[in-house]
């Protein structure tokens, strides 16, 4: 039984300002750090494409199923995000190790020739993000103290 209440002067002013602001809505990326390498460029895809990530897409199990190349893409192109963090965890589960001195990921290629308290020497595979591929590194000395 409550009839309409005429809008006051203030409300009319508020409505005008809200309508103006409606044309400059904040975008979710306005609340995120700048992504130099992969800014959000929303691209309208056909509606029959998957529009939202599959459930549990933000879990390590999901990331573990991704290919090594995909994990490295996520690690190097989505830096500073939860995706990078999950990709790092998944890579470790694929027995990759991040070497903080060389800022690179390594994987033991065969049983190392010599192992001491501080390091192990042998042949390793590393991920070369310049050439975007896995490459062998003969006679490499892997110092444990730099293991991240």
């Amino acid at each position, binding site marked *: 039984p409550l009839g309409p*209440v005429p809008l006051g002067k203030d409300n009319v002013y508020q409505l005008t300002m*809200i309508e103006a602001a409606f044309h400059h809505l904040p975008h979710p990326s*306005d609340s995120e750090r700048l992504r130099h390498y992969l800014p959000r460029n929303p691209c309208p895809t056909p509606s029959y494409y998957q529009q939202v990530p599959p459930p549990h897409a933000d879990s390590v199990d999901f990331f573990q199923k991704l290919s090594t190349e995909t994990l490295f893409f996520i690690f190097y192109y989505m830096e500073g995000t939860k995706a990078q963090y999950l990709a790092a965890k998944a890579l470790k589960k694929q027995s990759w190790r991040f070497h903080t001195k060389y800022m690179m990921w390594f994987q033991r290629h065969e049983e190392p020739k010599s192992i001491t308290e501080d390091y192990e020497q042998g042949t390793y595979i590393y991920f070369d993000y310049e050439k975007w591929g896995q490459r062998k590194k003969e006679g490499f000395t892997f110092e444990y103290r730099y293991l991240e």
Partner: protein
Amino acid sequence: FDDPPGLHEKTEYLLREWVNMYHSPAAGRDSTKAFTCFVQQFSEVTKHLLSKQMHQQSILKTDELITRFFRLCTEMCVDLCYRALSEQTHNPTLVRAKCFHTLDAYVRLIALLVKHSGDTANTITKINLLNKVLGIVAGVLLQDHEVRYTEFQQLPYHRIFIMLFIELNAPEPILESINYQVLAAFCQVFHILRPAKAPGFAYAWLELISHRVFIGRLLALTPHQRGWGMYAQLLMDLFKLLAPFLRNADLNKPTQLLYKGTLRVLLVLLHDFPEFLCDYHYTFCDVIPPNCIQMRNLVLSAFPRQMRLPDPFTPNLKVDNLPDITQAPRILTNYVGIIQPPSFKKDLESYLKTRSPITFLSDLKSNLQSSESGCHYNIQLINALVLYVGTQAIQHVHSKGQTPSISTIAPSSHMDIFQNLAVNLDTEGRYLFLTAISNQLRYPNSHTHYFSCTLLYLFAQANTEAIQEQITRVLLERLIVNRPHPWGLLITFIELIKNPTYKFWNHEFVHCAPEIQKLFESVARSCM
């Protein structure tokens, strides 16, 4: 006004220097190297200005200089954004990258100055500086909002606030030690910039207070729920902006978007922090317009996570025997203080105790009326009166060694008041009165139980069918909207249509229209 000569140029120079340092590879981790270098330059400039200024004998304190520095920096950043936004590139990503290039650097500078001002233990200096800077940014925003009117742009301010908030909530020991004061500072500035005050900033404002880091810090991580009261205040600010538009149920696209955004935030709160909505339901229902049914249902549907609600449709559900039904819910609002004026409160207390002054009942309706334009009744007073009388009634029943039930809640002075309101108020007044009662129908607790019995009692004792019809309408309008529906509402309605005592199906209005009859029957069927 009267910035010392040269300050503007010096500030522009310092800001430009800092932005370059911030983005240079040599900035070091978290820009600490760049910051050390900047502070030297900053102190040289201030020393120079202070000394120069001294010659003109106008004493310029460092503190004031810092204030001017931050205001000028903020204005420069804002101007840069307006210039970037006005360029006709239709590439919002490019425009944003250009704006954020400077804004993020400025934010980092503020964060570093806050973190490193005063020595580590001296948190007061840090918080004072933060409050000062937030106040300055808010001041620039409000002035800009007023001057530019519909040309106002939220972008620079939104970016400054959110990135500064995220920076100051990084997991660092120095920040953890001042986190509560940081949250309080941001809640205070967001209250100053509440949507009713800066409606052109409303969308950004809702984005800010619903940001995952902000909600996480205020509602989840701050111990002992110390952030809940501050967050409730911000939600109130939001409801107060929306209320006039929701009240008339005429939302255009912009306000519809704001409303839908509010529903999303409330759904997150209902899912993650239902106890928060339980504690502040009264406060929120005081400002949510009475005809804003679904949003209010959303607030009233919250129940404590550890509580298991029996299915309201359970045959022969014995509500009186539920363990939680005797527990009083937590209500963190001083609703008693709303019962004004003191003379009215005194007469109310006296009537509840001794049923005198007898004029209390006859004066009741006029005491509830309001001179405010557009509303004949003081809704907040009606809500407070209903809750207060109800809580006193529950105590009164307990004092007689009984538990509230349909047979123990009357006769009593409390029920005299409710029956008087049911009979003497006009349709609008009675609608507001019945709404105040229905707003207590929530999860199993002593208020839900008492007010459910009260509503059924008023239905049974009604001396005209109009009252019974209106009670039905008030319940029905809450049931026919999309979910969620509060548990207490469902059990009350089911009892009304099932229990032969109320002769519900005999009433004319039940058969007033085929779709209404069908609706009642469908509800009845799901009960059986």
